[in-house]
C-alpha cells in the first residue's frame, strides 16, 4: 500500500529510541558500516521495543526483574546489618533480638532465631540468588546451544548419539538429578575452595560474604554446578529443532557452495537466526533457576550457612507453628516477586516474537499517516 505508515509515539518510545541509538553507537565503534547494513534489523528492534512499551504486564515484569538484578548487585552494600550474628552478641541483648516480629527493635521485617535482621539477610540472599542465575544460565545455555547446533547441523549418527545422550539427562526429573549431584559435589567443591586463596577471595566478593565464609558457599556452588548438568538438555533439544528447520533454507546451501566452513555457517549464520526463541526461553528460565536454586537450598537447609532465600525459609519454618510467620513469608515473597517479574516479562516477549500474535500487535502500533484516495500504482 502506498500510504506511508508512521508510528504513534509515547514517552517510553523515546526512551527506547535513545536506548537503540546507544546500542547502535557502541556497535559502530567496532564495525564501521554495521548500522547501514543492518537497518532493517534495527527497525525490527525498534518495533519490538515499541510493542513491549504497549504491554503493561511486560513493563511491570521488566521493572520487577530489573529490580531483582539491582537489589542483587547492591544488596550486600545497602544491608543495614551484617548477615552474621556477631553484632547481636556485641550488644549483649540477644533476648530482645530473638525472633522479634516485624517492626520491633528497628528490624523492619523482624529477626530470626539468632537475632539477625531479616531484611539484611534477604538483601544478602538476593546476591546469592542473582549469582546463581548469572552463573547457571549462560553456561548451561552455551553447552546446550553447541550440542544442539552440532546435532541439528550434522544430523545422522552424530545427531542420534547426542540426542540419546540428551534423552538420558531428560530422563531424570531435573530437581532430583540436581539434588543428587549437588549433595555429591559439595565436599569436593569445599575442598577446592579451601586449597585456593584466589577462589576464596573471588567467591567471597562475588557472593557478598566474608572471606571466612567462602567455604560455606560450597553448597550453593555445588547447586550451581548441578544446575549446569540439568539445564543444558532442554536448550540442546530446542536448538536442534530450530537448526533442523533453518538448515533447509537456501542461504545455508549457498554458504556451503561458497565454501564456508561448517563452524562458520553454524555460529555466524544459523545461530543468529535461531536466537529469538532461545532468548524467550532464557527469559522464562531466569525465574526457573531462581526457583530451583531456592528449592535445593531449602532442601539442603542446615548445610547452607550463608544467607540464601530458600535456606532462610527452611530455618524459619520450625517457628511457623508457633505463629512466627515472617521468617517464611518474607523470603518466599522475595522469591515470588523476582520469579514472577521475569516470567511476566518472558511471557510478553514471547507474544512479541511469536509471528502468530505479532501482526495484531503491529497494527496497534502503526498508524497510517494519511489515506491516499483511490490507490494508484
Amino acid at each position: 500500500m502506498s500510504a506511508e505508515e508512521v508510528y504513534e509515539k509515547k514517552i517510553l518510545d523515546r526512551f527506547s529510541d535513545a536506548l537503540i541509538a546507544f546500542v547502535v553507537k557502541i556497535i559502530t565503534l567496532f564495525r564501521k558500516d554495521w548500522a547501514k547494513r543492518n537497518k532493517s534489523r534495527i527497525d525490527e528492534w525498534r518495533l519490538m521495543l515499541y510493542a513491549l512499551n504497549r504491554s503493561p504486564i511486560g513493563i511491570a515484569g521488566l521493572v520487577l526483574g530489573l529490580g531483582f538484578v539491582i537489589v542483587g548487585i547492591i544488596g550486600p552494600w545497602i544491608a543495614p546489618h551484617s548477615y552474621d550474628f556477631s553484632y547481636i552478641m556485641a550488644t549483649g541483648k540477644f533476648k530482645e533480638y530473638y525472633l522479634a516480629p516485624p517492626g520491633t527493635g528497628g528490624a523492619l521485617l523482624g529477626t530470626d532465631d539468632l537475632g539477625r535482621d531479616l531484611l539484611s539477610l534477604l538483601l544478602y540472599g538476593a546476591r546469592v540468588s542473582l549469582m546463581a542465575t548469572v552463573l547457571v544460565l549462560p553456561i548451561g545455555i552455551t553447552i546446550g546451544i553447541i550440542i544442539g547446533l552440532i546435532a541439528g547441523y550434522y544430523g545422522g549418527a552424530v545427531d542420534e548419539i547426542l540426542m540419546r545422550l540428551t534423552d538420558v539427562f531428560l530422563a531424570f526429573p531435573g530437581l532430583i538429578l540436581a539434588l543428587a549431584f549437588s549433595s555429591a559435589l559439595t565436599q569436593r567443591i569445599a575442598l577446592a575452595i579451601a586449597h585456593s586463596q584466589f577462589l576464596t577471595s573471588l567467591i567471597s566478593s562475588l557472593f557478598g560474604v566474608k572471606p571466612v565464609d567462602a567455604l560455606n558457599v560450597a553448597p550453593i556452588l555445588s547447586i550451581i554446578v548441578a544446575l549446569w548438568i540439568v539445564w543444558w538438555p532442554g536448550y540442546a533439544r530446542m536448538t536442534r529443532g530450530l537448526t533442523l528447520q533453518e538448515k533447509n533454507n537456501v542461504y545455508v546451501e549457498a554458504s556451503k557452495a561458497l565454501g564456508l566452513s561448517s563452524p562458520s555457517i553454524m555460529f555466524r549464520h544459523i545461530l543468529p537466526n535461531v536466537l529469538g526463541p532461545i532468548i524467550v526461553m532464557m527469559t522464562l528460565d531466569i525465574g526457573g533457576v531462581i526457583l530451583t536454586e531456592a528449592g535445593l537450598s531449602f532442601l539442603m537447609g542446615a548445610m547452607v550457612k550463608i544467607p540464601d532465600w530458600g535456606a532462610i525459609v527452611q530455618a524459619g519454618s520450625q517457628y511457623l507453628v508457633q505463629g512466627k510467620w515472617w521468617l517464611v513469608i518474607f523470603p518466599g515473597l522475595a522469591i515470588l516477586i523476582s520469579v514472577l517479574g521475569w516470567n511476566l516479562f518472558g511471557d510478553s516477549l514471547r507474544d512479541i516474537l511469536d509471528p502468530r500474535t505479532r501482526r495484531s500487535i503491529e497494527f496497534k502500533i502503526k498508524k497510517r499517516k494519511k489515506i491516499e484516495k483511490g490507490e494508484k500504482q
Partner: protein
Amino acid sequence: MSGPQLREPLIEVKDLYVYFYTYAGIVKAIEDMTFTIYKGEKFCMVGETGCGKSVTSRALANIVPSPGRIVKGKVIYYRDGNPVNILELSEEQLREIRGKEIAYIVQDPSSALDPLYTIGYQIVETMIDHYTVKDWKEGYKRAVELLREVLMPDPEQRIRNYPHELSGGQRQRAVISIGLSNMPRLLIADEPTSSLDVTVQAQLLELLRRLVREHGLTLFLITHDMGVVAEMCDRVAVLYAGNIVELAPVDEIFKNPKHPYTMGLLRAVPNPQADIEKLEPIPGTIPNLIYPPPGCRFHPRCPFARDACKREKPPLVEVSPGHYVRCWLHAE
C-alpha cells in the same frame, strides 16, 4: 437451454453486504450483491483470489467466518416453495439446513477433515445428525455406497482409513461424498479441485458433473478458472472486489463480454470459445478493500475509465435478456 427467467428460483440474494472487522480496519468484502440461483441449474461464480466468491457462498447458509459479519441484505431460500430469509433463522434451524439442504464441498480437503476420526465416521456422523439414516450400521453401509459412487477405490477399506492415510484426490472424494451424503438441494462447491493435480482435477470435475446430472442437484460452483466455467456452467457471475460486475448465461459471457474486467479476464486466460492470439495480463492489482476506490471499484485498472467512473458507483443493469453488467459504459 431455456431462459433462466422461466425457472423456479431456489435461492435469492438481495442487496447483501458482508464486512470483515480486522485489526487493520473494516474490510468491505461484499457490497451490493444481488443474484438468484434457479432450481436445477449450474451457477458459477468466477473472480480473482480475495474478490469475495467464497464469502458469498458462505453467506448463503449464514456461516461467514469470523471476523466477518453480514451487515445488510437478504438471502431468500425457497424451502418447498415457501420463501424463508436464511439470515433470520435461529442457529438450530440453520443447522438443520446446513449439510442437509445446502451442502458444501470445500477447497482444501486435508484441513477440512478431522485428523483424529476415520473418514467413514465423518461421513456417517453427517447423516446421523440430520436423521437421514436410522443408525450407525446403516450409515456405514450408505457411506460405502457413497464412496463407491464418487469412484473411491476399495471403499470398504477406505471408510476405516484416517484422512492422513489418503491421497489428496481421495480426500477430496471423501469430502464430496460428505457433501452428497444427505442429497442436498443446493451443492456449493468452492474451488473443489484447485488444490489437486491437473489430471485428478479433470476426473473430479467430470464426476461432479455426472453426480449433479444424475441426482438433479442445483450446483453453485466457485472457481477462478474460466476453463472450468466453460465446461461446467449454465450461468456465470463475474466478481471483482466484492461486486458482481457481470452476470450472464455462459455462452453470452464468452461470446459477448460487456464489462472491461470480463474482457480482460478472458484475454488473460486461454479462451476455449474464442481464438485469441496472445494472453494479456490485466494491469494493476486488486484494490485494498479496507479503503476501496470510490466510484467503480475497477476504475484504477480500467482502460476505458471516465470521470463518472471515479465519482459514482455504476448500477447493475440488464443489457440484454439475462445479461447484467455493472459499468458506466453500458448504463445509459
